[in-house]
């Protein structure tokens, strides 16, 4: 009876959430400090591990990257005494290591660095601050829940999960139990919440009801787990009582309709911090001359979830990526959609990839998809847009974290591709022979000239590299901070929301009419007049829900 009364009290005392931070700097990779004074986050652009002072709104960078490098911070979690931050760092060798730094700044210490477990997500600290509960994603396709000593020493594996990456896990305030989300069953796409004893002695499925149950977090008293669930039709916050590692009674809703929520943590004073993505982006077709006025949305189903369009060589079809499933901190679940542009027809290409990074057309009308398969290999795959039949063009087990990007001219005999950020290569698909065309730091965004003779890619922060496909002298076009490239009738670079026409002969770049709120992803139509682009505005803000 007392238990029920306490539950009702908790369920009814939740008040309206309030926004604590909402500007262009908001990223959803950090966590609130247990004392509620600050949030750790990654500063967009610089990639610096930073802290945001909740009361005053001040921001302070703690760990910045060396000049000229591409390193950056990623997930982070704050120690129980709110004095240290454990964080993932994308390092100079191209994988993530685990580091810790004082909130006062200073040099961070590397706690774990090994390419074999090259993606790490620190999630929580043990109550004594001695270890960090960390999720590892290994190159052999296994994710592992492990404890890493905060003062150095070997990590201890608690649980291995095959090709499942929990979206979130947390450690109870007394350090005895971990909660995490994973697939509800072998054949289920739904996730649910599991409790794992921190000494490995037991594991219990906490939530058995239908729906996707995600992002579990412990309340400060260790008596409840708060998680999000779509079982009520919207993404709601639910609470389940726990006693001695066992669920007590039925879970209940504490807040309906959180929106596109990504929970970040619960502070000692019961403030539930979560990020919310709002706004939307979609794929539009417009003209280069008057992009803002002529824009029309071209997607038919799943509006406001689409991005990264690519025109087919005949200009009759448009391929783009469409987001599916629940929110993710990192890479989102995507499918490929092909729209017949002259007909009201849109369909999904049933490609068997675990993750899709980008899609392009080959010169002869097939899709060149970069992504990874569930066997832990990544690469470039050739996909028939009609039958969805797929075959690997370039594939590596445990490939580079920045993946592959490729262009394939008509004829299908050759592919040019970027491997990670360091190499531009050509492969003869018949003989398997490979040739390195360019090598260097920070190569990205590959495009092929219409005559098939020259490759362009962004080379570092201040230039575009032009490389003849048959070898020969390379040329650099000075252009700062390009974020994309597309070579249709003309060579166009994206720079933030702007589009710039570049002259391959070295003439000055020219700013094209503004398409307005353009986001990443554009493609020129073969007619040289139209362009498909992603537009809209996705925004993130951080809200707090008082749980009692």
């Amino acid at each position, binding site marked *: 009876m007392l238990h029920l009364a306490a539950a009702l009290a908790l369920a009814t005392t939740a008040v309206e959430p309030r926004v604590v931070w909402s500007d262009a700097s908001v990223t959803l990779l950090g966590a609130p400090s247990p004392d509620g004074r600050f949030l750790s986050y990654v500063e967009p652009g610089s990639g610096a591990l930073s802290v945001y002072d909740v009361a005053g709104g001040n921001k302070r960078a703690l760990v910045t990257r060396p000049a000229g490098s591409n390193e950056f911070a990623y997930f982070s979690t704050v120690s129980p005494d709110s004095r240290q931050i454990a964080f993932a760092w994308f390092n100079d060798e191209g994988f993530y290591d685990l580091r810790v730094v004082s909130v006062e700044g200073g040099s961070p210490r590397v706690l774990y660095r*090994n390419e*074999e477990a090259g993606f790490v997500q620190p999630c929580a600290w043990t109550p004594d601050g001695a270890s960090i509960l960390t999720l590892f994603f290994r190159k052999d396709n*296994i994710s592992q829940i492990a404890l890493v000593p905060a003062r150095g020493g*070997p990590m*201890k594996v608690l649980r291995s999960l095959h090709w499942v990456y929990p979206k979130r896990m947390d450690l109870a305030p007394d350090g005895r139990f971990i909660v995490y989300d994973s697939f509800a069953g072998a054949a289920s796409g739904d996730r649910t919440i599991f409790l*794992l004893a921190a000494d490995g002695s037991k594991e219990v499925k906490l939530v058995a009801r239908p729906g996707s149950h995600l992002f579990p977090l412990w309340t400060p008293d260790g008596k409840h787990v708060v998680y999000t669930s779509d079982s009520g039709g919207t993404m709601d916050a639910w609470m389940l009582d726990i006693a001695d590692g066992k669920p007590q009674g039925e879970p209940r809703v504490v807040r309906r309709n959180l929106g596109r929520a990504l929970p970040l943590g619960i502070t000692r004073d019961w403030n539930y911090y979560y990020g919310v993505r709002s706004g939307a982006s979609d794929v539009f077709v417009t003209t280069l001359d008057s992009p803002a006025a002529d824009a029309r949305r071209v997607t038919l189903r799943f509006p406001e979830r689409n991005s990264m369009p690519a025109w087919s060589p005949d200009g009759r079809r448009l391929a783009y990526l469409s987001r599916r499933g629940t929110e993710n901190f990192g890479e989102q679940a995507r499918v490929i959609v092909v729209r017949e542009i002259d007909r009201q027809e849109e369909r999904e290409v049933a490609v068997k990839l675990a993750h899709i990074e980008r899609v392009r057309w080959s010169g002869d009308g097939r899709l060149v998809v970069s992504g990874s398969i569930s*066997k832990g*290999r990544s690469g470039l795959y050739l996909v028939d847009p009609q039958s969805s039949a797929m075959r690997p063009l370039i594939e590596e*087990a*445990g490939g580079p974290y920045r993946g592959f990007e490729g262009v394939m001219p008509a004829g299908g005999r050759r592919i040019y591709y970027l491997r990670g950020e360091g190499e531009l290569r050509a492969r003869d698909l018949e003989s398997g022979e490979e040739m390195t065309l360019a090598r260097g730091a920070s190569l990205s965004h590959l495009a092929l000239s219409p005559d098939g003779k020259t490759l362009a890619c962004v080379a570092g922060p201040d230039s575009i590299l032009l490389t003849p496909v048959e070898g020969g002298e390379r040329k650099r076009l000075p252009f700062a901070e390009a974020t994309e490239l597309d070579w249709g009738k003309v060579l166009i670079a994206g720079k933030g929301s702007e589009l710039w026409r570049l002259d391959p002969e070295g003439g000055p770049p020219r700013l094209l009419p503004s398409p307005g709120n353009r986001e990443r992803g554009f493609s020129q139509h073969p007619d040289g007049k139209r362009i498909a682009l992603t537009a809209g505005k996705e925004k993130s803000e951080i809200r707090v829900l008082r749980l009692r």
Partner: protein
Amino acid sequence: MRRLAVAVALATLILGAAEKKLVVPAGLDAYLPVPDSNPLTAGKVELGRKLFFDKRLSRDQSVSCATCHDPAIAFTDRRKTAAGVNGREGPRRVPRIANRVYGKSFFWDGRAGSLEEQVLQPIANPKEMDLDVAEAASRVGLDVPALEQALASYVRTILAGDSPYDRYLAGDAGALTARQREGLRLFRGKAGCTSCHLGPNLTDEAFHNTGVGWPADPGRYQVTKVETDRGAFKTPGLREAARTPPYMHDGSLATLEDVVEFYSKGGQGNPYLDPEIRKLDLTAAEKAALVAFLEALNGKVRDGM
């Protein structure tokens, strides 16, 4: 007085046993998936250990579990295929039983869904111990469920880990030699071994047709009756592999070098060859590096509580 002393000693033994905790070697999951119906207790594990070495469980009392699963060589034997009572020979290599606590199915063809289901089958198998399980249980003064639970509990405590590879993954960058690191790179890269041999126990617990022994043994087909499962066998874990030849389900490959050569050539062609098996064309140096890496999977094997 003597009765009291015995009672106290017994209570101490029981309490002591209850406090014992299984120490999991480095590199393996601390979480051991043990069924609620057969919780791991020191008493059951110790009883299971005794039964594991008890030859009364075979018809002519000549063979125990440990005859084929010799603790001195990581609970395997040296024979190509298993030997049973009266010199009878089984069709397949003795399976590795270390780390089976993490297993999802058992035997080369996966015909048992749990260790409880598995442990009694060799006792009844005419080519192995050839004894009715009820009689086996009676011989050791137990009922069948107690025999089954004790043996399964003991097998769950046979763990292999704490190898140089585990220490390397745990953060000791110097635990592997340069050649072993190159072997690891090949293992998960060009050679594609991690398509099947992955995770702490280096197995996907799935069934694959590599062409070994084709078409003599139907393998997984015997269980599923699905034609495409013909010739498929469960991926074995690779821990302690370097000191436990011969290899494959029929023991047909004598050395690790032979195994690497077999895969380098793309396995043995047949209609149901797994698509992951393809010609690798490894160089001599690459083959040597792979073998060196496999040797880094030798660590410590422990059993009991």
